[in-house]
């Protein structure tokens, strides 16, 4: 039935993380919705239960996670962290209302050798996380550049993968 469609092996998976009923926490989902249909990538969404991310990326060659963060920067600031080889910095973490956060999931996967070769987190700084509120104007304005940044990164990863496949054949 409806579950996540299986991505071709070593594909690029974009996972939007968040809750669109909690204000700016919906930023990752809003970006993911705009990335659907982008050629060559699989777009998935997570309601924020970090532990389920491990199953969501188990077939991925590269993962781009898009999530709201709270680090004290101005709302709408876009952060980019390549966590393939090192953890997320401790301060910009999402306001984890769930038991296992996104950063916990990344480190758990790394510990168990279940982290895809390339993992990049795009974090958009949230301003308000109240129940039911829409995206704040600053975060709303950040969605377009955020989507563009994720799309550019996806295309680059796909091109690199094709290049590697080409040189291998």
């Amino acid at each position, binding site marked *: *039935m*409806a*579950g996540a469609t299986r991505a071709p092996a070593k594909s690029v998976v974009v996972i939007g993380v968040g809750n669109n*009923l909690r204000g700016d926490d919906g930023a990752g989902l809003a970006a993911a919705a705009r990335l659907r249909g982008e050629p060559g990538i699989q777009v998935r969404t997570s*309601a*924020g*239960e970090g*532990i*389920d991310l*491990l*199953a969501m990326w188990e077939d991925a060659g590269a993962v781009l996670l898009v999530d709201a963060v709270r680090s004290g920067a101005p709302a709408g600031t876009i952060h980019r962290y390549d966590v393939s080889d090192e953890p997320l910095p401790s301060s910009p973490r999402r*306001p*984890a*209302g*769930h*038991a*296992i956060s996104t950063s*916990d999931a990344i*480190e*758990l996967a790394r*510990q*168990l050798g279940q982290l895809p070769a390339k993992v990049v987190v795009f974090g958009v700084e949230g301003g308000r996380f*109240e*129940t039911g509120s829409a995206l704040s104007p600053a975060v709303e304005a950040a969605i377009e550049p955020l989507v563009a940044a994720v799309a550019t990164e996806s295309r680059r990863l796909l091109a690199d993968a094709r290049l590697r496949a080409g040189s291998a054949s």
Partner: protein
Amino acid sequence: MSLITDSAERTLRVDYLARVEGEGAMYIKLSGNEVQDVRLRIYEPPRFFEAFLRGRAFTEVPDIAARICGICPIAYQTSGARAIEDACGVAIDDGPIRDLRRLIYCGEWIESHALHVYALHAPDFLGYQSMIELAADHPQVAEQGLALKKTGNRLVALIGGREIHPINMRVGGFYRVPSRTELLALRDPLQQALEQSLATVRFVAQLPMPDVTRDFEFVCLRDGELYPIDRGRIVSDRGLDIEPAQFARNIVEEHVQHSNALHARIRERGAYLTGPLARYNLCYDQLRPLAREAAAEVGLDRSCRNPFQSIIVRAVELVDACDEALELIERYEPPDRPALEVQPRRGVGHGVSEAPRGMLYHRYELDDDGTILDARIVPPTSQNQLAIEEDLRAVVDRYHDLDDEELGLRCEQAIRNHDPCISCATHFLQLTVEREDPSPVAAELG
């Protein structure tokens, strides 16, 4: 954890307690070794689901209620659907639709209990701050937990359409029922999950176990011959034995100033405990033989009043849920129709089921055309809130000799004994222990 001192008092504070679902705070005040005050403060804002439901169609309950919780949506859908069916004079008490309800509910127990045992609770017993540290020292244990969770998720996704906030449950049954072939595809993963559950019982039984005995009044459903999941009468070990319709006559909910969740208590008696420990103590005889054997093998008595041993009971329930799921799949034949016809009528209906963390009650009042006039939802965590506060008193009484950091950790572990889902009850758990005898210890907890 930071310690703020002034001339008279000590305040030990954990500003962010990890490994619980949702946001709340704990406040403990000590004078010397004497506990003065304990409060589980849920400050997640009220969510108004009951108000959203008023004015909606009776058929919308399973989809709206599923949004209350990402961990136990099946519980909300089951209690909600049963309450609506009750109001409309329909009962699904046997047959393949009921079997499918129990089967998807088994999936929810498996994924929720696996998450709690491995990711949230086991690290406490081993002195780890998180499952990541546990995974570093015991990678196979962590992988076992993840595999169990994944199988539970698969079962929920197969029957429910997706694993978080499933979309395939409806009043009267399902929109689409799986084929026998689809379910049989889960037989091998569930067989593995059963083996992993048995290994889980053995793993948790050898964890260092704090020694606290509590005089709980246990409350759970009791349902004919089956271990309570989807229906039953509400019973306790102190004489309560009532139909779901009598819930409000026997259990009262009160607003307390320090919490955005209502506190439930048994009228004229007080705190009670619902959840795995209650089910195990009151319905041990209904556990499947394999689950009872697993408990006996590790020496778990049939009466268990140490709240820390709830981790063993959850593992025993994992065995029970995997074993029952396998039987339900073996005998499954799809029903003729995926759902019974449910015609609206004016009236009141009640539905109760056993969420992984405890009993969940719904009550709806419907108009002639099925419009919801009134809704009431009592989640397990608000029922357990008082018992958790009483547990903390007992833990502080028993372990007041520990230093502030150790005592703080023990208190957090005690909260997690009951797998509180604060999101359901109304999100950050902040722990404060205040002592009147000053001691200059300060530390940061994850």
